[in-house]
C-alpha cells in the first residue's frame, strides 16, 4: 500500500488548481464542523471540573422569578453533605444608563464571608477582602469587569433597582481574580435587605451551595427538593453547570440546531470531495488503462484513488482545524459568561477525531469513482479520448 504513496502524492499535485480549490472548500466546511463539534461537546458532553461540580444552586421550583423564604437558608445548611450556603440574590437594576448595553453586568447580593467559603478560588489582597467582609456598602468586582470600566478600589458604584425599589450606593472594596470568571459584581445582601419593607425583606431569589464531595453533590439536589416538596414554596436544586445550561435554552433548541447544521455541512463535504474525485478519475481513464497494462491490479488502482481523496481531505481538514482554532478563541473571548464554553478548544484527541472524520468522509465520497476506475476495461480505457 505505502509504495503507492509517491503516486498518490504526485496525482494530487497534478491539477493544482483543482486540488487547491477542493482543499479550500473542505477547509471551510471542516472549520465550521470543528467549531460546531467543539461547541456541542463543550455544552452537552463535558464534565465540569471537579471543584466546579461541587457548587449547586437552589431556587423556587416554579421559576427563578419567584422568591424563597430567607428562613430556608438554615434548613439548607442542615442537609447532610452541604458544606456552605450563601444567599445568592440577583439584583437587576441599572448602572448609569440602561440604554447602553455596555452597562449591563451581573450583580449579586451575597453574604461576604460565605461567598469565600463557596468560592475559595477567588483571589484578592487580604486588606481588600477584609474591607468587603466588614463594610456594609462594600462590593467586589471580577478583574474583567473592573478592567472594562477602569474601576479602582474606592470607586463609587450606584445601582438603581428595578426588581427591588431601592438605590444602592456601593463602594468597590476590591478586585478579585479567578479562572474563567465573567463580568460579575458581588455586594452585601444585608445592605439590600435594609432598603426593603414587608414581605420582601425576608425573601431570597436563590441560594448558592457547596457540597463536601462529588458524591454528596449528586444526592443533595433530591434530598433538598424532597424536603421542601410539600412546603408552600417548593424548591429546585441543581448543579451550577446545569443551571447555566438552562439559559442556553433561550437560544431555542440548540442541540437540534447544531446536529442539523453538522449534518448539512458533512453532506456538503461529501459532495465536494466526491465531485472532485469523480472529475479527476474521468480525466484519467486513459492513464488508468496504462497503469493496468503495466500490471497494476484493480485493488492497487482502487487504493491509489481512495488514497488521493484521503490525502486531499486530510490537508483540507488540517487547514480547517487551524482556522477552527482561531475561530474558537474568538468565541471564547466573546462568550466568557458560559463556563462551559471556556473548555472549548483544540485538544490533541479532539483534533485527531476531526482529522479522522475528514479522512473518512474523503474516502467514503470517492468510493464510487474509485470503484469505477478500478473496474475499467483496459481496452475501453485506452480508447477513451478523455
Amino acid at each position, binding site marked *: 500500500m505505502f509504495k503507492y504513496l509517491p503516486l498518490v502524492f504526485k496525482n494530487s499535485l497534478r491539477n493544482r488548481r483543482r486540488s487547491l480549490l477542493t482543499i479550500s472548500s473542505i477547509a471551510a466546511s471542516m472549520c465550521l464542523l470543528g467549531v460546531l463539534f467543539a461547541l456541542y461537546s463543550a455544552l452537552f458532553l463535558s464534565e465540569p471540573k471537579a471543584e466546579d461540580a461541587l457548587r449547586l444552586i437552589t431556587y423556587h421550583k*416554579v*421559576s427563578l*422569578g419567584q422568591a424563597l423564604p430567607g428562613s430556608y437558608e438554615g434548613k439548607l445548611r442542615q442537609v447532610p453533605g452541604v458544606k456552605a450556603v450563601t444567599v445568592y440574590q440577583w439584583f437587576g437594576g441599572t448602572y448609569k444608563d440602561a440604554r447602553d448595553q455596555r452597562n449591563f453586568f451581573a450583580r449579586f447580593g451575597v453574604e461576604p464571608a460565605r461567598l469565600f467559603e463557596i468560592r475559595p478560588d477567588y483571589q484578592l489582597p487580604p486588606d481588600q477582602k477584609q474591607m468587603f467582609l466588614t463594610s456594609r456598602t462594600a462590593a467586589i468586582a471580577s478583574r474583567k469587569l473592573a478592567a472594562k470600566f477602569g474601576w479602582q478600589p474606592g470607586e463609587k458604584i450606584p445601582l438603581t433597582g*428595578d426588581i427591588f425599589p431601592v438605590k444602592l450606593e456601593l463602594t468597590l472594596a476590591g478586585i478579585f481574580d479567578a479562572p474563567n470568571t465573567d463580568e460579575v459584581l458581588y455586594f452585601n445582601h444585608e445592605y439590600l435587605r435594609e432598603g426593603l419593607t414587608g414581605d420582601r425583606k425576608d425573601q431570597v431569589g436563590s441560594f448558592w451551595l457547596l457540597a463536601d464531595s462529588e458524591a454528596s453533590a449528586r444526592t443533595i439536589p433530591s434530598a433538598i427538593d424532597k424536603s421542601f416538596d410539600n412546603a*408552600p414554596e417548593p424548591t429546585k436544586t441543581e448543579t451550577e453547570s446545569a443551571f447555566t445550561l438552562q439559559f442556553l435554552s433561550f437560544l431555542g433548541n440548540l442541540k437540534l440546531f447544531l446536529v442539523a447544521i453538522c449534518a448539512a455541512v458533512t*453532506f456538503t463535504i461529501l459532495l465536494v470531495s466526491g465531485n472532485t474525485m469523480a472529475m479527476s478519475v474521468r480525466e484519467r481513464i486513459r492513464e488508468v488503462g496504462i497503469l493496468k497494462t503495466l500490471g497494476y491490479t484493480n485493488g492497487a488502482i482502487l487504493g491509489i484513488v481512495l488514497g488521493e481523496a484521503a490525502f486531499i481531505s486530510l490537508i483540507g481538514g488540517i487547514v480547517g482545524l487551524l482556522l477552527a482554532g482561531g475561530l474558537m478563541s474568538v468565541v471564547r473571548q466573546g462568550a466568557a459568561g458560559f463556563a462551559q464554553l471556556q473548555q472549548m478548544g483544540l485538544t490533541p484527541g479532539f483534533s485527531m477525531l476531526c482529522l479522522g472524520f475528514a479522512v473518512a468522509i474523503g474516502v467514503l465520497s470517492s468510493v464510487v469513482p474509485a470503484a469505477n476506475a478500478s473496474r475499467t476495461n483496459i481496452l475501453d480505457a485506452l480508447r477513451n479520448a478523455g
Partner: protein
Amino acid sequence: MKLPLSYNLRNLAVRKTSTIMTALGVAMTVAVLLADLALVNGLRQAFQSTGDARNLLVLRKGGTSELNSGVTRQQYQDIKFKPGIARNDKGEPMASLEIVTIVSLKSSDTGNNSNIMVRGLTQTGVDMRTIKIAEGRWFAQGQREIVVGSGTAKRYPDARLGKQMRFGKGYWTVVGIMDAGSSAANSEIWGDLNQIASDFNRDNGLSVVLVRATDDATVSALMNSLNDDIKLNMSARSEREYYDQQTISGAPVQYLGILVAVIMAIGSSFAAMNTMYASVARRAKEIGTLRVLGFSKGSIMISFLIESLLLAGIGGIIGCLLVIPLNNVTTGIGSFISFSEISFNFKVGPRVMLNGLLFALFMGAIGGLFPARQAANKEILSSLRDV
C-alpha cells in the same frame, strides 16, 4: 452574438453527476440560511402582530419589561380615570390591571425546563385583545382555571386541555386553549387576576396596566398625561413598540445562522468554481470552435457565467424546496426582555425564498467568474489543437 441558453442547459444535463453534486452543495448552504431566516421571520411576525395601535402599556418608571414592572391598586385607580381612555359598551374605562409572572415547564422537544409567562387579568383585559378560544372555554372569575396559548400547548404536554398544572399555591385546571394568531399571547398562560395575585402573594404588587385611547389622535396626549404625572410615577409606552423591541431576542441565533451560512457559502463557491473549471477544460475544443464560428470573447464569457448561475440557481431552488416542510413548524426562543419563552412558527415566505435564491446566485457568480474569464481568454489555435 449571444449563445443560446439551451446550450448551457444541455451542457449541465450532459454532466449530470457533476451538476447534481455541485447544485446539492449549494442547496445545503441555501437551506441553512433559509432555515435561519425563516426562524427570524417567524419570530418577527409573532412580535409585530401583537398589540393594538391605540393600546398603551403602563409600567413602573424605570421598568424595562412587564416582568420587572410594578403597580399598586391605588395607582390603577388613578390611571383608570385619566381623560382620553376609551370606554367599553358597559361604559367602563378600558384599562386592564394585570399581573405577569413566570413558571417553569418541561418542554416535550428539548426535555429542558423553560420559562413560560403567566398573566393574570380580568374580563376587561381579555376584551381588549382580539383573541379567540380554539378549544374549551375562557377561565371563570375567582376560579383556579387557566387558558393556555396554542403555541405553548403544542410544545408542553403539561399544558394541554384538561390537565392540571401546579404553580403558585396549588393546582390549576387548563379549561381552554386560546388562538392568538401569531401574536405573543400564543406563548402565554392566562388566568384570573385576583386568583393569580393571591397565589403569588402579590395582592397589591401587580405588574402593568394596559389602557386603550379613545382614538388614534388621543394616543400621544394620553401617553404624555400618564408620563408627566409625577405623583403617579409610571411610564407609558405603545404596546406595539414594546413587542417590536423584543424581536431582538432572535439576534444571537440570527447572527450565528448567518455566520454558518457564509462559511458554508465560501466552501460552496470553491466547489462551484471547481466544477466550472473542469467544465471549461473539457470543452476547450468546443470553445475554440465557437470562436472560429464568430462568437466573441464577451459572449463566451457571459455564456459560462450564465451556466454557473444556472447551476447555482438549481441549487437555490432545491434549497428552497428543502426548507418548505419547515414552514409553520412551532419552536420557541427565550426573550431576554420578558425572561420567558416565546413560541412561534417558522415562516418560509416568498421574501425569505427570494433571499435564498439571490444568495445562491451570488455563490454562482463568484464561482463562475474566473472560469468564465479563462474560457473567454483561451487561444483559438491551441484550444482547437487540444485533445
